[in-house]
Every structure is written in C-alpha cells, then in structure tokens.
C-alpha cells in the first residue's frame, strides 16, 4: 500500500478499470461455475448483468438460471450443488433475507455454494445504502463469511471462496459494501485464466446425488444423528480459518496479493488499533497513517474472515494493545454493533486485552471521513469504554 508512485504507475498498465461488481463478475467468470441461479436486486444487479454479457460473448459457460425469487434461486443452488455442480449466486439485503430459511439448509446439507452479497440497508424504511446488518444477521446459518475492502479484494476473494467452499464442503458468502465498493470504478488486476484453473482444481465431493445410486439428502433423522451433523459442521468450521489463510498465501504466490483471515496494517508496536470490516478499512488506513505521522502509535486490524470468527488470532493480534476501537457499520438493536459483541466475547479472559470501545460508525451509510476517525482516536485513547456503543453521526 505504501509502494513508491513510480512502481504504482508501472503496475497500472496491466490493470483494467472495473467497478467492484464487475470485478466480482470477472472473478466468477474465471472460476467457471457450472450453474449460476441469480435474482437481480439493487445494488447487486451489475454482477448479474455482467455475467449475462460474458455468457452472450461465449466467455461464461455456466447455466444461468433466473428464477422468480431469491428463495427459489437458493433452492436451485442447493439442488445443483447436490448434483455435484460448482455453483455461484449473488444477492443483497432483502434478497439475502428472503433466502434465510434455505441458508440453514445449504449449510446443513454441506453444499459448497459461493454467494456474493452486496451489503445494503434492510427495509423499513427503504434505503440503498452500505450497511452490513443484512449479512451479519445471517451469522448463525452455518455459512462461512468473508468481507472485502475493495474491487480488487472482491475479485481475489470470490475466487478464493470457491477453493475454501469446496475444501471445507461448506457454503461461503463474500460481502462488499454498496456503492463504496460495489459501484467504485478502480484499476483492477485480472489474473490469468490458467492460473485460476490451477488454483481451483475440480475435486471429488464426499456426497453427490446421482440417479444411478439410490440415496436421499436431508431426509428426516433421529436426534442423535441430527446432533452429529452439527458436530460435523462445527468440525468443518474449525478448519476454515486455516483454509482461508492457505488459499490467501497460495493466491499471493500467483498474484503477489495475499489475504488471510485477518489483515493487519501497521499494528507492530501499535497502542491504539481500529478494528473493522469491509470498506471502512480503507478510510481507517488513511487515519492510521495520519495518526502515525503525528506520533500516535496507531494500527488497523481488518477482520476479513468473520465466520468462523478467528478468535485465537484476534486475541494474538490485540495482545498488549492499549486501546481498540471497533467500527461497526451495522446495528443490532438492543445490543449495539455485531463485531463489537463478537470481539468482547473473543477477548473475555484473554491475557492483557485492550480496552475495547464499540462505535456504530456509518450505520445506514452515513459518511465517516478520515478526520472523524482521527478525532475519535484522540477522544478514546485514554478513555474508559462505555458499556453501550457510541453512535458516530
């Protein structure tokens, strides 16, 4: 991020100008799913539009299914995945919530579906603004959740998601913020198709439906067997953090861009660390640089993998830090910010945990400029955390 401008200009010649949503569509096209059931919704629609354009050009071979609702789209995803297909879908906000019932089903049936969600405020009132409560409120459905910061990160992460999903036999949801990422047009580096093919080999599933074999999927079972499915699910979740780190490291070997469960920026020797997810991290990086220039030992911890929560890694990253400020672009009524709650739980009983401040920052898409974050750091650096989260305007 701090490379000299001269080298940056050299890199530009190899890049394309793409919106975050079109970067996702490029990533999906390169990952070559077999089936893509997708229902359009603002601000996700450009992902579907671009996939249709790729299909018309002959570059995207997947069977594109456009059913009558998101619920049906997810049903089609589950059926296709059960037949052994590589499956992709995309949605946002109301659409994701309409899928809710089947999100549990997809995870319980261990279907390695990859879904891209554009984080958007849920109604009511109606709005189209960046806010992560749509996906965070799906946290207990058994889906792996990754959060992207930029169009480049979205392209890289959606490709890595297929590898993680297929290795863990779990569904993976990747989210990016409406407009600040989904509609931000930026230089994006496209990987070589051959590199993506070798990164995503077709692997055999432990279970697929096949008319030649008499088997059933998801049929009623007894308590003990049902209980066992959750133990298996938990075991699979337990392996995800390592798979995400491994996929990120391997992707780094291919592209030079690494990305693990946590993304640490200038945290060495940091006394004050911002903790956040998604696009807010970009602005926080600038705030960290400004604070460092003024002699404040600030850093940033971006949580890229939210489910499963990398609790041990979070403890290690924040050990010895004096003050951590969680920036939640979401609001769970009655309890505050979701990441703040999760972090409080993860750090409970940790050795020398930081004082943890929870801030509802950017809820409903309100603007959070760099100056607001630097001022916040100065206000909270020596303060005792309040029991209730602080609303930033």
């Amino acid at each position, binding site marked *: *991020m701090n*490379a000299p*401008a001269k080298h*940056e*200009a050299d890199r*530009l010649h190899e890049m394309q*100008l793409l919106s975050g949503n079109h970067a996702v569509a490029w990533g999906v096209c390169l990952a070559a799913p077999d089936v893509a059931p997708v229902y359009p919704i*603002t*601000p996700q629609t450009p992902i579907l539009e671009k996939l249709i354009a790729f299909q018309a050009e002959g570059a995207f071979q997947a069977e594109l299914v456009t059913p009558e609702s998101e619920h049906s789209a997810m049903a089609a995803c589950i059926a296709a995945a059960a037949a052994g297909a590589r499956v992709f879908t995309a949605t946002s906000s109301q659409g994701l919530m309409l899928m809710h019932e089947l999100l549990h089903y997809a995870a319980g049936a261990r279907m390695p579906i990859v879904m891209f969600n554009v984080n958007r405020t849920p109604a009511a009132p*109606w*709005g*189209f*603004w960046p806010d992560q409560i749509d996906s965070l409120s799906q946290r207990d459905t058994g889906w792996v959740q990754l959060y992207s*910061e*930029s169009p480049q990160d979205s392209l890289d992460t959606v490709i890595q998601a297929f590898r993680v999903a297929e290795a863990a036999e779990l569904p993976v949801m990747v989210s990016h*913020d409406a*407009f*600040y*990422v989904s*509609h*931000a*047009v*930026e*230089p994006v580096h496209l990987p070589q198709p051959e590199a993506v093919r070798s990164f995503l080999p077709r692997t055999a599933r432990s279970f697929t439906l096949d008319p030649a074999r008499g088997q059933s999927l998801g049929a009623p079972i007894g308590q003990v067997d049902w209980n066992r499915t959750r133990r298996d699910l938990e075991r699979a979740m337990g392996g995800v953090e390592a798979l995400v780190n491994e996929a990120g490291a391997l992707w780094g070997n291919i592209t030079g861009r690494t990305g693990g469960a946590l993304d640490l920026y200038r945290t060495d020797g940091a006394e004050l660390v911002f903790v956040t997810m998604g*696009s*807010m*991290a*970009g*602005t926080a*990086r*600038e705030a960290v640089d400004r604070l460092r220039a003024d002699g404040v030992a600030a850093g940033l911890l971006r949580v890229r993998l939210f489910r499963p929560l990398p609790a041990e890694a979070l403890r290690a990253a924040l050990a010895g830090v004096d003050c951590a400020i969680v920036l939640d672009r979401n609001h769970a009524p009655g309890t505050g910010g979701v990441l703040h709650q999760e972090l409080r739980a993860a750090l409970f009983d940790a050795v020398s945990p930081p004082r943890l401040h929870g801030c509802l920052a950017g809820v409903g898409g309100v*603007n*959070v*400029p*760099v100056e607001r974050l630097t001022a916040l750091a100065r206000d909270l650096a020596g303060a005792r955390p309040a029991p209730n989260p602080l609303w930033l305007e």
Partner: protein
Amino acid sequence: MLEILILGRGGQGAQTAGNLLARAFFEGGHWVQSFSTYGGARRGTPVMSSLRVDDRPVRLRCNITAADAMLCFDDSLLDKGFLAQGGDEALIVVNSPRPAGDFQPRAAQRIIPVDGRAIARRNGMGKVVNAALLGAFAAALGAPDLDRLTGVIRAFAPARKDENVAAAREAYQLLSPATEEA
C-alpha cells in the same frame, strides 16, 4: 490527490461523465476511484458522481467533503449546499447561459459558467450535454489532455461519436483562453 464532484439530474449523464473522466485520467497513468450513489434516484432528481485521482492507489472509502473541482450539470442545482461540498479554493464549472457575475461563490471558490446546452445543440447533440461539459471541465482544470479525453469519449459514446467529440472539443477550446487569462 485531486477530488472531483459531478452533480447532475438523473438521466443527464453525470454518472457516465464521472466514469469517462476517470478513464481519461487512468489512461494518463493515474490511479482513480469513481463512484456514484443512486438507488432511490429517478430521472430528474439530483445524482452525484465522485472521482478521486492520485499517483498511488486510492484507499479512502468515504464521501468527498472538500472537492478541489466540481462540475454542475444544471445551474438550478448550484446552491449553498453544493458549494459547501467544495473546498475554499474549488474550481466550479456550471452548465448555464448566465454570466459569471450571477453566481455567488463561497470563500475563494471560482465559478465558470459554460453554455453546454448551446454547444451541444450546435454540434448535433440536442439536449445531451455531458461531452460538452467534460470538454469545458477539462479545459478549466488543465487536465486531462484534450486528445485523451476525446479518445475516451469516442471509444465509449454509444452513438453520435463525431458529434460528441466535436462538442467536447468546442467547449474545451472556448474555455481554454478564458482559463489562461484567469
């Protein structure tokens, strides 16, 4: 970093203008970030397009609150609220047949009116003003280079490519000497 805001009414092409301008800067070797917000916006309602240009990757993901330069597609949108989003020395190009003296800038801001509608009409573009306004804006700003801008307009205009380029060129040339004097 150069921060630019473009304000228009839904359907006028402010979002397209932002993306074309971003592409012209990108092709000139700059890192860019161009984004618009819409959703509830309908034809005729205000639409804002934001553009950052830098010599390193743009990391900020927040609104532009003190723009260096602003392009306004409609003088009825040029109010105090819009001017407050520009920096104290912001350069503002507004689509208007009115003289510069009719506008009250804030602090040391400079407002340059250009009759984009007349230029568009003269060049066979009817009511479609975005190419003309981009030409005027590039001249006032001193960037991007006219040939690079018209190259991008020609490559991406869905129709009437020659007319679009001619409108951009006329507006650019109209404003270039005025800018040098100022």
